[in-house]
């Protein structure tokens, strides 16, 4: 029989016992729904974790260091030249690294400890420069009060919550609810901070600056001056997370736009000053890549250039492994209901054989082959699987959505940001329907072969 005829007869037969077949199909849909709901939560959680980690910049970032700084360390197994012959991590190296395929941007790690003055009071803290791209790529700014930098070179600052508390003279007491970010932001946003910093200037420019307290280098190689400068910064935002958490102990509490920080030529304690040139070289660069999967290859390419490079991609791999195991467990539990539903399919089809015994006999007498009869029962099982699968995906989608909704209400009550903990990707939709059809077909194996083997003479005698 042609496929269309098999499908047509199957649908007709299913309609003949619509109540029983509907119950069986509902059983399948409940099984598929449990599978989809479980996996949608597993996938959603995995995506949430991946998104958070990706946004944190930990997993799509390679930190590049000059191996010259490691000349005191043993590092026999490193790729590339010995530390002493390692190239300088300067502007040229930065642009070369930025041109590696898959690299989105390479920016220097600019951070320094300095004085910040507001309302006549001086506060000493760590300041860090943040690339303008962090606006969209760094989840630390998700809960930002105020706004992100208006431009890449704006004289603006974003404060970390603890520094805002320090500026306002608030000391959080242990065990009590801390002041909310919104409350801290109200008196601070729009205010001005004066930042004092040491500018690293070439000797020619420093000589023309009579007001500066220039400090000529003692050796021939240090061909630059250090000039004390001040810059007024407008407070435009407050964040309660640390956008630079990778740095651990050297956490900054005030953030500036990277381009602004670069234009200020701020003298940093970690800036290498061994270059004869007045152009700075860097101790480290942060290299952001398009996709965390590209990190190992790019890390290798940078190492081949003679620089040190490290990333946290291994941790990301472990996380993916954990979620794969979690998804597998969820899928197994979700499939149990589908396994029960498959027994329903067997039962329904065996009943159909008993009821349609004579009809099978007639069909065989009229020339239906065993394959035709088998195909017909397979098609009926497959149709139940298809309809049950589609209904189950819809039901599972609704269950996942409801769980997500409930979870977000809970998170909101706990003062946590809303999160999408549920996801039904297209592959899950198609996979669940496909799996449902396969399970149904497997369930139809026995009834279909039993129907095909029926003796037509016996079947025709059946009343």
């Amino acid at each position, binding site marked *: 029989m*042609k496929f269309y*005829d098999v499908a047509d007869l199957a649908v007709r037969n299913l309609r003949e016992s619509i109540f029983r077949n509907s119950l069986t199909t509902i059983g399948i849909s409940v099984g598929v729904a449990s599978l989809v709901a479980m996996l949608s939560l597993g996938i959603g959680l995995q995506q949430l974790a991946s998104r958070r980690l990706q946004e944190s910049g930990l997993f799509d970032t390679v930190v590049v260091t000059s191996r010259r700084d490691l000349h005191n360390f043993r590092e026999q197994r490193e790729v590339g030249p010995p530390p002493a012959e390692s190239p300088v991590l300067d502007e040229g190296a930065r642009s070369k690294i930025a041109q590696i395929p898959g690299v989105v941007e390479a920016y220097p790690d600019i951070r320094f400890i300095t004085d910040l003055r507001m309302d006549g009071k001086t506060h000493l803290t760590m300041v860090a420069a943040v690339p303008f791209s962090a606006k969209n790529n760094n989840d630390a700014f998700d809960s930002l009060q105020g706004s992100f930098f208006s431009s890449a070179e704006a004289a603006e600052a974003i404060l970390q919550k603890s520094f805002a508390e320090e500026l306002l003279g608030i000391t959080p007491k242990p065990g009590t609810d801390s002041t909310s970010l919104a409350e801290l932001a109200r008196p601070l946003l729009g205010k001005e901070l004066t930042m004092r910093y040491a500018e690293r200037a070439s000797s020619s420019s420093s000589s023309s600056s009579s007001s500066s307290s220039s400090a000529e280098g003692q050796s021939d190689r240090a061909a630059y001056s250090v000039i004390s400068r001040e810059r007024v910064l407008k407070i435009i935002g407050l964040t309660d997370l640390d956008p630079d958490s990778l740095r651990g102990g050297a956490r900054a509490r005030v953030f500036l736009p990277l381009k602004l920080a670069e234009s200020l030529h701020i003298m940093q304690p970690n800036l290498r000053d061994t270059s004869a040139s007045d152009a700075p070289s860097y101790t480290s660069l942060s290299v952001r890549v398009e996709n965390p999967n590209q990190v190992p290859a790019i890390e290798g390419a940078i190492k081949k250039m003679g620089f040190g490079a490290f990333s946290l991609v291994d941790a990301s791999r472990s996380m993916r492994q954990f979620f794969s195991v979690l998804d597998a467990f969820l899928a197994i539990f979700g499939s149990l209901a589908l396994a029960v539903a498959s027994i329903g399919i067997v039962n329904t089809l065996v009943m159909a054989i008993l009821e349609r015994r004579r009809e099978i006999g007639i069909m065989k*007498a009229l*020339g239906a*082959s065993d394959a035709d009869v088998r195909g017909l029962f397979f098609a009926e099982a497959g149709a139940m699987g298809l309809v049950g699968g589609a209904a189950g995906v819809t039901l599972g989608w609704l269950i996942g959505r409801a769980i997500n909704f409930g979870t977000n209400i809970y998170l909101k009550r706990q003062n946590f940001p809303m999160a999408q903990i549920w996801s039904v990707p297209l592959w899950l939709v198609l996979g669940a329907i496909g799996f449902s059809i396969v399970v149904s077909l497997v369930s139809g194996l026995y009834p279909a072969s039993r129907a095909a083997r029926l003796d037509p*003479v016996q079947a025709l005698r059946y009343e």
Partner: protein
Amino acid sequence: MAVRTANVSRHYRMGDALVRAVDGISVDIRAGEFVALLGASGSGKSSLLNLVAGLDSPTSGAVTVHGNDLAALSREQLAKYRLHTVGMVFQSFNLIASMSLLENVELPMRFAEVDRLERAALARESLERVGLGGRISHRPMELSGGEQQRASLARALINQPKLLLADEPTGNLDSRTGTEIMELIRSFNQSLGMTVLMVTHEQALAEKYAGRMLHLADGKLVDDLSNSGAREIPVQPAAQGRKTE
């Protein structure tokens, strides 16, 4: 030769007893013949018909239809044989209740993978030929017994078989309707040159329509008479009742 059975037997066990439903029957039926199988209930008429239809396999002996030794055919080949060579009409019509007359008549063509449009036209034509052109969308339950049997006949003939096997085609019909059906079968036998092998227990009906009558008793062929009274083969001795051992 359209049908040849060579010492064909069909025995089966029922508990401890061995039932000899068909017991060593040898008969030749020429193409275009109208043959009636006569005998009492349990004489083996339907069993012999099932063997010729390829629905059942002989315990021993051979059934050859249009050169095909049915015992040598696989299940798949037997299905094709039933589809293309044989048309069957049953006492209880055996139309599928959930299908309309048109769909019932189309059914064998679905198995033959005939194109949808073509088979609908052929089925309509076949139903018109048996006088049911106006009832094509009716379900079997909405028709009289005679109409159902005519639809069954239309279905049996749809694949233009060489051999029409009819198992008590008038058994569930009144005499007037039965006569209508028999007239139709005879017209197909004569106009299409189709071989007809019909099971009946009505001697008068067989004498009126069949050109040859095969009398069976206890699974054996006991008489083979042409309508003119000529005997075609030597008569085997008849035993009383169904033979078991």
